[in-house]
């Protein structure tokens, strides 16, 4: 072979070798997941500080989000609020639906290496029976430990929402042994979740910082560390978002949609799973205790105008008593699909014996964006049927206490939460809105609640939800006005961070590990 030929062969072989080598990986196999780089620090601001990591003591959304990010959960909500298995390898329901066998993933450990045990689930349940999240574990009778990885959840009745409850804060996994031996445990908890609280944090600190938990089985996370900053002033939150001091800002005033933001800021809003309501105190008797008067108010109130003037047209007018909760909640159940019918309302007022109307006081929280304006619109629209309302703002500290103490005539209020909980609050004897308004639900309400809470058949549940809402509409003890929405701003793509999952106020930090 001549030299020139040898050189061409050599060059060709080198080229082939280069091509082969460039296609080789470093040894790590690709799992088809996201190969994006994680951001170093994700910072978002909310209206208040993280006051506790103890799920049994939490009551605010900021703390709840911190709890869910720094605690192990058997299931975890995705962005559509569908619970997905997390630390549970499997959850098997018995044939009669009265028990669920939970098996933890193998070799699970907390951030400090302590093993995650089934007894930690049992302990979480026991701690929360008398905690602020007692309603989330109300369907559970007991939890039995079978072995280190297995527990059986015994239910009081069939619960089609069990997987959702397991994704809530009340069943957060923390080591029983450490909680019982350390009275200050909740100031420096370990974690089986995506993040672990950074050392030095004091509950109530304006800045809450957590770093990635290397022992979380589904890491790495799209952000190596997170910071939740308390910025009570909404104007400051907006400014921080505009200047890039934070990556996302939650719960912004709806009016800020009209402001100019840099191109890289995305503003979006989503339902929170709740509504604003008008309630009347039936315990006072008189027109408030008259069902026809309440039905008249529901017909006369201008929901579209409330949405437009008080909530920048963003919070949609209610068309059914329940907010949009997916396949279970039929829409457009309200008369006229919620639109005004002043003449029909006047006819009902006359039938009720209040053709000349009456005067009353309507209270509203002064600390909630748009609520005072909403109460004013309610007053304006009810004036058309002779009801003269005086709007009385009360500070946030009086908001719920005035309602529970019955210290009101009418109230512009709001509520929300899990759809089954909301329905229960509206229809169960002794539950929140029933007790607050003084209404006596019929026996059929309890039957429908039992069906909706226990049936695994979606159609049967939907039918129960629909009939329950019809009872609710008939009573009009809680008049739905608009569906609540939360406005958020973010500078990071949703491949990293979702400021709000569907119909909830929970955040979602993406994982790169699945």
């Amino acid at each position, binding site marked *: 072979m001549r030299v020139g030929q040898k050189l061409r062969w050599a060059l060709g072989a080198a080229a082939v070798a280069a091509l082969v080598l460039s296609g080789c990986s470093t040894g790590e196999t690709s799992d088809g997941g996201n190969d994006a780089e994680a951001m170093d620090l994700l910072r978002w601001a909310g209206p*208040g500080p993280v006051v506790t990591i103890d799920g049994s003591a939490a009551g605010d959304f900021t703390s709840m989000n911190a709890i869910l990010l720094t605690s192990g959960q058997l299931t975890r909500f995705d962005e559509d609020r569908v619970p997905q298995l997390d630390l549970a390898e499997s959850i098997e329901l018995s044939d009669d639906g009265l028990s669920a066998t939970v098996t933890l993933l193998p070799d699970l450990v907390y951030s400090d290496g302590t093993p995650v045990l089934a007894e930690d689930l049992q302990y979480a349940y026991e701690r929360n029976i008398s905690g602020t999240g007692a309603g989330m574990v109300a369907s559970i009778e007991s939890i039995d430990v079978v072995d280190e990885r297995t527990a059986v959840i015994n239910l009081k009745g069939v619960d089609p929402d069990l997987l959702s409850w397991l994704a809530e804060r009340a069943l957060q996994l923390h080591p029983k042994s450490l909680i019982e031996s350390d009275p200050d445990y909740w100031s420096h908890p370990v974690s089986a979740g995506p993040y672990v609280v950074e050392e030095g944090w004091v509950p109530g600190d304006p800045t809450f910082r957590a770093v990635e938990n290397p022992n979380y089985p589904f890491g790495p996370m799209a952000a190596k560390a997170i910071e939740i900053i308390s910025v009570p002033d909404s104007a400051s939150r907006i400014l921080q978002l505009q200047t890039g001091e934070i990556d996302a800002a939650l719960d912004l005033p709806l009016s800020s949609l009209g402001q100019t933001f840099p191109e890289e800021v995305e503003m979006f809003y989503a339902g929170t799973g709740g509504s604003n309501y008008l309630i009347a105190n039936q315990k006072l008797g008189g027109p408030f205790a008259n069902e026809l008067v309440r039905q008249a108010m529901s017909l006369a109130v201008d929901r579209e105008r409330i949405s437009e003037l008080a909530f920048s047209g963003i919070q949609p007018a209610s068309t059914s008593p329940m907010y949009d909760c997916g396949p279970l909640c039929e829409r457009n159940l309200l008369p006229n699909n919620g639109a005004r019918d002043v003449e029909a309302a006047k006819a009902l007022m006359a039938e009720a014996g209040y053709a000349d109307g009456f005067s009353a006081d309507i209270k509203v929280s002064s600390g909630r964006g748009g609520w005072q304006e909403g109460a004013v619109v309610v007053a304006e629209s009810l004036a058309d049927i002779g009801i003269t309302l005086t709007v009385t703002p009360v500070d946030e*500290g009086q908001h719920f206490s005035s309602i529970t103490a019955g210290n009101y005539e009418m109230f512009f209020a709001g509520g929300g939460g899990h759809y089954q909980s909301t329905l229960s609050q509206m229809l169960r004897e002794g539950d929140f809105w029933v007790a607050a308004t003084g209404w006596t639900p019929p026996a059929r309400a309890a039957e429908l609640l039992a069906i909706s809470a226990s049936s695994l058949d979606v159609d049967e549940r939907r039918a129960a939800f629909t009939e329950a809402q019809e009872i609710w509409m008939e009573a009009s003890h809680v008049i739905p006005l608009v569906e609540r929405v939360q406005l958020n701003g973010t500078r990071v793509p949703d491949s990293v961070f979702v400021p709000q999952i569907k119909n909830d106020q929970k955040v979602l930090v993406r994982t790169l590990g699945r």
Partner: protein
Amino acid sequence: MKRLVSRARSNYWVVLVVRSLAVAFIVATVAFSILRLAPGDPVATILGDQATPEAVARLRSQLGLDGNLLQQYLAFIGGLFQGDLGVSVTSRVPVVTIIVNSIGPTLALIAVSSVIGFLVSVPLGLFLALRPRSVLTKSVNFVSTLSLSTPGFYLGLLALMLFAVALGIAPVAGYDPSFPGMLRYLWLPALVVCGQLIPVLSRVFRTSVQRTLGEEFTEAAIVRGIPRWRYYVHYLVRPSLAPTIALLGYVAGQLLSSAVMIEMVFGFPGIGTQLVRAVSTRDYPTVQGIVLVFGVFVVLITALSEAVSTRIDHRIGRETP
């Protein structure tokens, strides 16, 4: 004679301590009473729409809020004597811890504002006193009036828009507890506070200097040909400082309460922010503890300013027992 003066001075300090304790006790009692008499219930606020009658009763018992008012008051006073201000009903953190962790930024803000305010007010007041008819004096008077008549929170928002957003030379919110990192977060809110502080202090100092200018010893100093700098410092500034320092002590105490608003605007994690949160959630122990600290602080700072005034102006010292 010296022994008499010494005994009088130690009596003064004893009286001061007793007075401080009495004020603190009264303030604590008022804080306890007012918040409980105000409408609102921390248990209902914590539970929100989860507040069934059973849940309310259970949580009230857990938080120690189920006794009558007298029992709660006695428990509070008893705790005070042991240095225990109770536990926050929302975060379950000891109130002492909350105060210790949050008072630092507020005190830093007050200190920086007071120092800047004093250092600017003294030369400015001196200038205003010596050049009462100059164009600059008239301009300063106009700006001072404008600044005083503008609400502090609005000044703060304007400052944020200008310095933080438009110019990008100040952070919008937050705090760095380390030094000198904290200065980056302090200078703008301190500037806003000084916008309200300097007009007042400079005017008081100007009036004081004008009064001093009329004294015989200042005329004598001029006649004797004292060097100018010595004349200004020893014959004008020093004898005129006492009212300004006394006012600064009073204002510093007021700054503690106005810090609430400044902290909200600038997202400052100080004790004012904690107080607002505690009041809105009816967190009784935290409000009581913070108000108590406010009362003690005001008494101490007032006493300190009195002591400094006495030291600077010996004429005051001869009048004070």
